[in-house]
């Protein structure tokens, strides 16, 4: 079996504040093959952004390993990272904040290839080609980011990410800040670019429909742990974990008004990732929780449809689920 492009093994990330330590990512493992898109879904505080930042080296990993293309990059320093930095790039959520307002767009685009093999003339040619590819006029290069709309800025951020012909792009909620109509433009663009140059994406999002459309496989994160992982179609339409089911139920669907409401427990006070407890991370909001859920952390176990689920009730629980629904309708 060929080694994957990116392999994350038992990754943990802790944030230390003055009073306590918060575990943002807790023993997460996943892999991305060449040319594949892995979707990472979860709500805010679930650790999905932190995972992406750990891969990018923007957040220090507390434990575990991150292996990119056979090379352990977990604790690579700033200097080491620069050697292969042209292979991993990122598109961030806020298109305005990710471009320096004080610099011309050309400066932002060209700096990503300084030190690479490209001559300045080649770099300029590549910039012109990419601007055209993301449907922005060539004159954009001489302007400042404030002159552009959110959608234009995000397309520019994509162009910047591709300047160095990377192999992996971390897309951290790239369309969450955009209008629905502009979202579609950006999503289409990302998919076309992927097809053209066999890119791999780590696509982070909270909208399951968007992530399903973009991804080959989806991993669902809850409080820093993967609760379900598998082919996009299976996870997004026939989920097995109660949390994924709640996510699916919560996604607004045009024309579906009288759908069953997500049976989510009450929100907890404060930070979602605050206290690390024994047992299933989802136990406090899970409508199906049984005693064992409070004492033992469930491991990811393979399901029937090629997915893996971390739930004590799996694979029996779909039946439990229907029973409860039956009771409710009575």
């Amino acid at each position, binding site marked *: 079996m060929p080694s994957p492009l990116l392999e994350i093994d038992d990754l943990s990330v802790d944030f230390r504040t003055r009073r306590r330590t918060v575990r943002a990512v807790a023993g997460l493992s996943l892999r991305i093959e060449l040319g594949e898109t892995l979707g990472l879904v979860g*709500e*805010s505080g679930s650790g999905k952004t932190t995972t992406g930042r750990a891969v*990018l*080296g923007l957040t220090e990993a507390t434990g575990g390993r991150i292996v990119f293309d056979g090379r352990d990059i977990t604790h690579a320093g*700033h*200097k080491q990272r*620069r050697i292969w*930095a042209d292979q991993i790039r*990122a598109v961030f*959520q806020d298109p305005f*904040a*990710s471009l*320096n*307002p*004080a*610099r011309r767009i050309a*400066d932002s685009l060209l*700096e*990503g290839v*300084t*030190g690479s093999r490209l001559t300045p003339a080649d770099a300029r040619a590549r910039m012109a080609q990419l601007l055209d590819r993301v449907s922005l006029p060539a004159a954009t290069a001489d*302007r*400042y*980011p*404030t*002159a552009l709309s*959110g959608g234009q800025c995000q397309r520019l*951020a994509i162009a*910047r990410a591709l300047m*160095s012909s990377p192999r992996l792009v971390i897309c951290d909620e790239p369309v969450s800040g955009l*209008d*629905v*109509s*502009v979202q*579609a*433009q950006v*999503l*289409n663009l990302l*998919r076309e670019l992927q097809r053209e140059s066999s890119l791999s994406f780590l696509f982070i999002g909270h*909208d*399951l*429909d968007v992530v*399903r*459309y973009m991804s080959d496989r989806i991993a669902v994160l809850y409080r820093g742990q993967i609760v379900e992982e598998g082919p996009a*179609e299976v996870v*997004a339409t026939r989920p097995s974990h109660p949390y994924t089911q*709640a*996510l*699916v139920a*919560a*996604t*607004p*669907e*045009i*024309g579906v008004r009288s759908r069953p409401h*997500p049976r989510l427990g009450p*929100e907890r*006070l*404060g*930070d979602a990732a605050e206290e690390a407890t024994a047992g299933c991370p989802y136990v406090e909001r899970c409508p199906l929780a049984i005693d064992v859920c409070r004492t033992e952390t469930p491991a990811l176990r393979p399901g029937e449809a090629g997915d893996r689920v971390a739930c004590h009730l799996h694979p029996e629980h779909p039946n439990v689920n229907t029973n409860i629904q039956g009771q409710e309708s009575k």
Partner: protein
Amino acid sequence: MVRRRPFAAFALALLVLVIVTCVAAPLVAPYPPDKTNLLSSLQGPSLSHLAGTDKLGRDTFSRLLYGGRLTLLYAAIVSGVALLTAVPLGLISGYRGGPVDRAIMSVNDIGLALPVLVVVLVVLSVFSEYLVIAMAALGLLLAPPMLRTVRGAALAVRRELFVDAAVVAGLSRPQIVFRHILPRVRGPVLVQSAIVAALAVQFTVGLSFLGFVANPPEASWGSIIAEGAQVLSKSSWMLLFGGGITAVVVLCLGIVGDALRDIAVGSWTRESTAASRRRRGRRRVAAEPPAPAPRPASSAALLAVRGLSIAFGEDEDLLVARDVNFTIEPGQAVGLVGESGCGKTSVARSIIRLLSGDGRVVAGQIEFDGRDVLGLSGADLASYRGGSVGYVAQMPMAALDPTVRVGPQIEEVLRAHESISRAEARERTIELLAKVRLPKPAEVARLYPHEISGGMAQRVSIARAVAAKPRLLIADEPTTALDVTLQAAILDLLRNLGRELGMAILLVSHDLGVVSELCDRAMVMYAGEIVEQGPVDDLLFAPAHPYTEALAACRPSSTTVRDRPLLVIPGQVPAPGDWPRHCHFADRCSHRTEQCVQRPVPIEPVGKGRESRCVYATEMLREGTREKARA
């Protein structure tokens, strides 16, 4: 610069003039600086001695120029050392943080605690032969306050996404600091540089006044002032000129520094304002036809908006919404849908009389329960806001005062609208927090906004908005900043609250999916106009306007085919002022024909309770039914 900032340009010219003439003193000065003439001592200004003469009859003007060379040279050394120390160290300290920051700042704090003048006098007495060393020491002593400011500015931008992006792009640390952090903080750096330069001039003059800088017969501005002070009883000219030139240079440095800051920061904001000015200019040429006369609303309406037009900017005609007509019946949930920049928030905010900035209603009427909203003022307006109409904003955290606990923020609304005691208000607040389904409401009431999550904050702001039992709740993108699970819960809550309190809801959103979950009817806005309105199900399943159809289609759903590209609406919403005279959507429309670009398209009834602003509305409906029949 000359036209936009004449005063600063004058100051800069003056500064350059002083510096150039001082540097060129040997060429410009009418006399050598030490040429004595005891016959003409202590004269006032005259043609032969522009600034008079001193005790020994030396020409003060020439001495000012020669003295300026010395003074400005040392001032330049002082400020140069201060800048070269403070800027790089401040940037590194702010960007790196951690131990590096702590080390630099500890040394800096010690520097701040040193008495500048005393230390410089000590250094001067030790290195009396090497004035440059003393001046460099002075520069080092002036650096700490500036270092602190630069560090603070850098600290504020080090966590910005563009810095992360630069790290990801593989830039080295010096590249990040000098290409990204420095340009971003150049505003405070320029202002601080001007302040330090002015301080350096003052200190140099002060030291030379004390006799340290210039060795007689050498001149400096400080020594001229000192000599002037000695002969003050006989002539005040020397003091006047010596002090005057110092004051002028210091003042000019301040003015030029401020102007440079504005220009440096303006380089990345000016472009957009220029563009908007250009648009405004074009706007005046192609004026819209006058809005048609407002139509009478049905008498049962709770809210009736008729012929509403809203304008922003100084020009009367930069419209952001034009001829908007709709009504909301009591207890009804109505959606207002469209992309950003279509004017939906402006319409929503005009209903509660909260248009931001210089926005204002330029035409039309808003009637709430038979009352004219636009005519309200004073106490009536205050009781209308909150009492009759509640408002929930998009950013829940920004809508709550971070310095006040959650409970009192709701209590104050209750007490503003009803005469109840503090204890009663507290009790009612806890009831309200329970009503928006917050766990442990009494506990939540005692928390500060930063201690609760975004979803809870939105519940709190909903509780506050419905505290005075308004009959209409305006929710402006209430779920856009939230996760899907929270979004579903908040929509649920709004639906139940509306039912329970018999409250009408106006939901503003860019997502038709969200609107379809909560609302019975919806208006679709595009580029300042309502393009379609009707029952939500009709809009979704049989749209009578291509924009509505496209909005519904471009959102990926759980049934979207993954191998096919998503439907897109090409291009973007035209900015206010760039609207075409014909159908506003024509340029992006897939159904467009010649007929669409000839004249403005009016909004017309199509079927029961529906209106559409499309020349092909009836055809779209007919085709829709045919397709359904086939399926």
